[in-house]
Structure formats: structure tokens, C-alpha cells
């Protein structure tokens, strides 16, 4: 260790920012830390495979004559309509990759701060609990948005470019809004989900286990209850089914299950609200603000 006072102490003559948003540096640091973690970058890159496949699908759909050799029925399969975007935004693979990415870069967002007692460092600064939570939420929302909203919008633009017309826009003027709103819901859900799991423990491995078990067990449990009671309402327990149902509602597609989509929407909103209150309470217990 070097000796103390290699350089002297000088007072800082700068000015503090006036319209200062502390959540922004928290979000930026969280994103930077996620990218620094081992295996995050290749996982992140691999998460875009479906987006490239769908982009290729859009390209082929506009050049069906050139791709006849690939087989018949291609035309039916590659209809670019709301169902196409719904299927992209509810892909099991994408959700699994979101979970995988968040297990590497998101599980420790709050858990690590608990473990290393960093919460007091944050709250010794001029920031409030909402700034802290907003910053942490921004990290998850950023990555989920990168895998849902961003590619879906690019796919939409690609369709317009490849077709050379605004037919899609004219036929489905609400589609762009559906893409944005459903992506926002997916971002909200996964943000609440990841932060909830991260705040329930001070061990990131436990948070990872919690994330996977909660997500998949909800589907298993709802499936078992469905088999026992033969009631579609049992499927409301499944997080994935709820996302699928809401997507069907948002994209005006026939839902896979005989359930009103708005019930699933309410379940997801209730889950997000419950997570928010629990996370807020967990952070409060450390911050000790009365």
C-alpha cells in the first residue's frame, strides 16, 4: 500500500447539478456491471437469434417467389400480421433468455447491495428510495426492452421497408401501439419480478434460484391444478400463460385459453403492485427511515 498523502487535498470548486436525477447513474452503473459479468455478452448476443430469424421471415415473406424451393405452405406461415408480432413477443425462448440474462446481470441488483451493506452508501447521498428503485428498475427494463420492444419495432420497420408500402400500417393502424404497450407490460412484469426476487435475499444465487423456480413452478402448479379441476381459471396462476393471454388481447388474436384476457392483465398488474410494495418494504427495513 502506498503512503498516505501522495497528493494533497484540494477543495472542489465545481457546482452540483441543479436538475439532478440520481436514478440515471444507478441505472447506468447497473447496465455497465451487467456487461462486465462473465458470459453476459455472449448470452445477450444469443438472445437476438429469434429477432434475426423473424427478420429473415419478413424478408422471405416479401420474396416468396424466390424462396419457392423451401417448400409449400411458406406463404401461410409467413403472414406478417398482428399474430406474427404477438408470436415474437411471447416466444418462450425470449422469456427464457430474459431470465438467463437477469440471472447473470439482474439477480444481484438489490441482493448484492444488501449483502455488502451498500444501501447505506446510497442513502447517505441526496437520493430517495424511489430514485434508488427507479435506477435499479431501469437496468432490468433496459435489457427486457432490448429483447422485446426494440426488435419488435425494428421488425415492424423492416416490414415497411421490404414491402415498400405502408399496407401494414393502413391495415393495422393500432399495431404499433399494441407493440409498444405489450412490450411495456413485459418490461414492467419482468422488472417487478427480478427486483422482487433480488430483494428477498442477500444472496444472488438464492435470488437466481427464486427467479427460475417462481417462473416455472407457477406454470407447473397451474397445469396440475388445471388437470385436477378442469377449470381454465387455474391457468391464471401461470405467469407465462398470463403473458400469452394479455398478448392475445393486445394484438386482437384469439387467446390460447378460454379465459378473458383482462383477467390475466389484472393478475399481472396485481403481481407488479405486490412486488413494488414488497421491494419498497424490504429496502425500507435497511434504510431505517421512520
Amino acid at each position, binding site marked *: *500500500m*502506498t*503512503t*498516505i*498523502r*501522495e*497528493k*494533497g*487535498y*484540494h*477543495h*472542489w470548486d*465545481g457546482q*452540483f*447539478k441543479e436538475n*439532478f436525477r*440520481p436514478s440515471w*447513474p*444507478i441505472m447506468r*452503473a447497473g447496465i455497465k*456491471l451487467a456487461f*462486465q*459479468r462473465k458470459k453476459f455478452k455472449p448470452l445477450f448476443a444469443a438472445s437476438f437469434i429469434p429477432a434475426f430469424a423473424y427478420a429473415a421471415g419478413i424478408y422471405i415473406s416479401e420474396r416468396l417467389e424466390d424462396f419457392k424451393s423451401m417448400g409449400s405452405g411458406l406463404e401461410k406461415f409467413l403472414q406478417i400480421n398482428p399474430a406474427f408480432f404477438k408470436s415474437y413477443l411471447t416466444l418462450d425462448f425470449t422469456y427464457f433468455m430474459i431470465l438467463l440474462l437477469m440471472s447473470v446481470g439482474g439477480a*444481484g441488483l438489490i441482493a*448484492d*447491495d444488501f449483502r*455488502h*451493506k*451498500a444501501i*447505506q*452508501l*446510497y*442513502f*447517505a*447521498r*441526496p*437520493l*430517495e428510495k424511489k430514485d434508488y428503485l427507479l435506477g435499479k428498475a431501469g437496468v432490468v427494463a433496459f435489457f427486457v426492452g432490448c429483447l422485446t420492444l426494440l426488435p419488435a419495432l425494428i421488425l415492424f420497420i423492416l416490414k415497411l421497408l421490404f414491402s415498400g408500402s405502408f399496407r401494414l400500417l393502413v391495415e393495422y393502424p393500432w399495431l404499433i401501439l399494441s407493440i409498444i404497450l405489450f412490450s411495456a407490460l413485459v418490461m414492467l412484469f419482468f422488472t417487478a419480478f427480478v427486483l422482487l426476487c433480488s430483494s428477498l435475499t442477500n444472496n444472488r444465487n438464492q435470488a437466481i434460484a427464486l427467479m427460475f423456480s417462481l417462473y416455472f413452478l407457477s406454470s407447473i402448479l397451474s397445469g396440475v391444478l388445471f388437470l385436477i379441476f378442469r377449470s381454465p381459471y387455474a391457468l391464471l396462476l401461470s405467469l407465462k400463460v398470463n403473458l400469452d393471454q394479455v398478448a392475445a388481447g393486445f394484438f386482437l388474436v384469439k387467446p390460447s385459453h378460454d379465459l378473458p384476457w383482462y383477467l390475466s392483465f389484472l393478475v399481472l398488474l396485481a403481481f407488479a403492485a405486490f412486488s413494488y410494495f414488497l421491494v419498497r418494504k424490504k429496502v425500507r427495513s435497511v*434504510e*431505517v*427511515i*421512520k
Partner: protein
Amino acid sequence: MVGEPMSIELDRIHFSYGQVKALNGVSLRIHGGAIGLLGPNGAGKSTLLKIMLGFLAPDQGSGKVLGYDIKSEQKLIRQAVGYMPEDECYIPGLDAVSFTAYLGELSGMPRQEAMKRAHEVLFYVGLGEARYRLVDTYSSGMRQRLKLAQALVHDPKLLFLDEPTSNLDPSGRQEILELIGEIASVRGISVLLSSHILSDIEAICDQVVILNRGEVAASGSLADLKMVNYRLYELKVKGELDGFRRELEAKACRLEETEDKIIKIFTPPDFDSMEIFRAAARHKLQVRQFVPSQTSLEELFARVVGVD
């Protein structure tokens, strides 16, 4: 100091954790300089620091830190105050310079200036060469210095240091104490140092606040407190001590006998020292040496808090 706001001004602060009363009418007026916050475990030191930082809202009472209200201007307080917590705390995955700059940014500093300043303070606390290392790989002593760096990065006017020398080896402890002493005396930053290591406080602080059971047991300049609270005399005597001890203890004095047979007598401030000679004469003790002595902070603390 006339015209400048007090560094700390608290008026009858009460705070309870449920049924447990942590602070019971704490009032303080402190201008600046280096202030030691002393007290046994559970005396309310940490609670008081948390109230001054705005982490806790007092049940009753009011107060200002650097002129900012502790109930309504917590953000301004935290921008002007640097806090070095007692716990070993850091953000894993960051190197020291990113960590320090990040916390500077969270204080409201522009990003580039926070980064520049982070380099400066890391050199200042002796982590210049290790500033690009991950904080996860730091030793306890280095993390202690890092905590000081993050408390200094936004150039606070007042520093709250909670047990700053814990986890340090003797030389590291000495270096940190010198650094804190310099910050307080030369750099013009007021320091409130909470510690249970009395010699640390005695080495740095010119003022002390002693808390006991949630109340201010004593506060003021260290020199004055020693004079006001008690006087100390050292004696060498020949003869039986028991009766002499009983008589003086009945007059609110405290007697201690050292290994080399020196009797230390702590007397109340208004106690007439001639009483010691009279008591010695009554108990047929021969006084062979009588020296008014310097008192230590340890003795003051023991006296005020009422422990041996």
C-alpha cells in the same frame, strides 16, 4: 465563527425504537472543528448520526445541520455532509475509482468532475496506486480508506465518521488518524468522529459529546470538561488506606490505586483539596507526595458515564 451557521444544532431530540427509548431530549450546539462523539454501546450514538443525516425522523424536537433542517432538508444535508459508515460496505464489481466517482455522481456532481475528483481523493487517502483494482479484492484496511475517500469525494463541509479506525493495523490506524486530523485542522472540514477508542478521539478532537442512555452526559471542549467535571490528584501515602478511602468516597470522591502504589483521587470540581490532607491526618496517614495531575479522556468518560 460569528454569523456562520452552527455545524450542528439540536434541540431536545427524542427518538424511540418502539418501546425502547434511544434518545431522550438530546440538545447540542456545535460550531465546527473536530468533535468526538462518545458513549457506551446503546448510548444512542448511531441513532443520533442517523437522525442528523435524515435517515430517521425524530419523535420530538428539532435540529439543523449546517443550517439545514433535519426534518425537511435531508437532501441538502446529505449533499453537504460526508458519511463514513462503520460497516464494511462497498459495491462489488466496481474498481475503486469508478466506485468513488459513482458515489460522487450520486451526490450530484457532474460525471466528469466526479471522476477527476475520485482520482484526487483516492491519492489523498493512499489508494492512488490501487485505484484501478476491483474493490472486492481490497483488504479490510484498504476498504476503510476507500470509505473515507467516498465520504470526501463531493468535498463535504462536515464529515460524519463512524468508527473510522476499526479493522486497521496500528500503522494504518495512525495514518488515518493523521489524515482525519489534517482534514479537520488544515482543510477546514468539520469532523464528527464517533468512536469507542478513546485515544483516537483524544488524539484528534478538541470537543467531545458524551452520550449515555440517550442523553448528553457531557459536552464541550475537552480541556474544559476535564476541568469542570472533576480534578485529579495523585498521592503517595504511608499507612492504612481503608478509613481514608471511605471518608473521601462519602464526599463524592473516587479513589484508585495503581500498581506502583500511587493513589489517584478524582474529586468533584468544587472540592477543597485541603480536605484530602485533613482526612489523611484523621486516619493517621503520612502523605509523602501530592501532585495535581492531568486527567485523561478515559478517566473523564468513566466518570461521566459512571463506569470503572
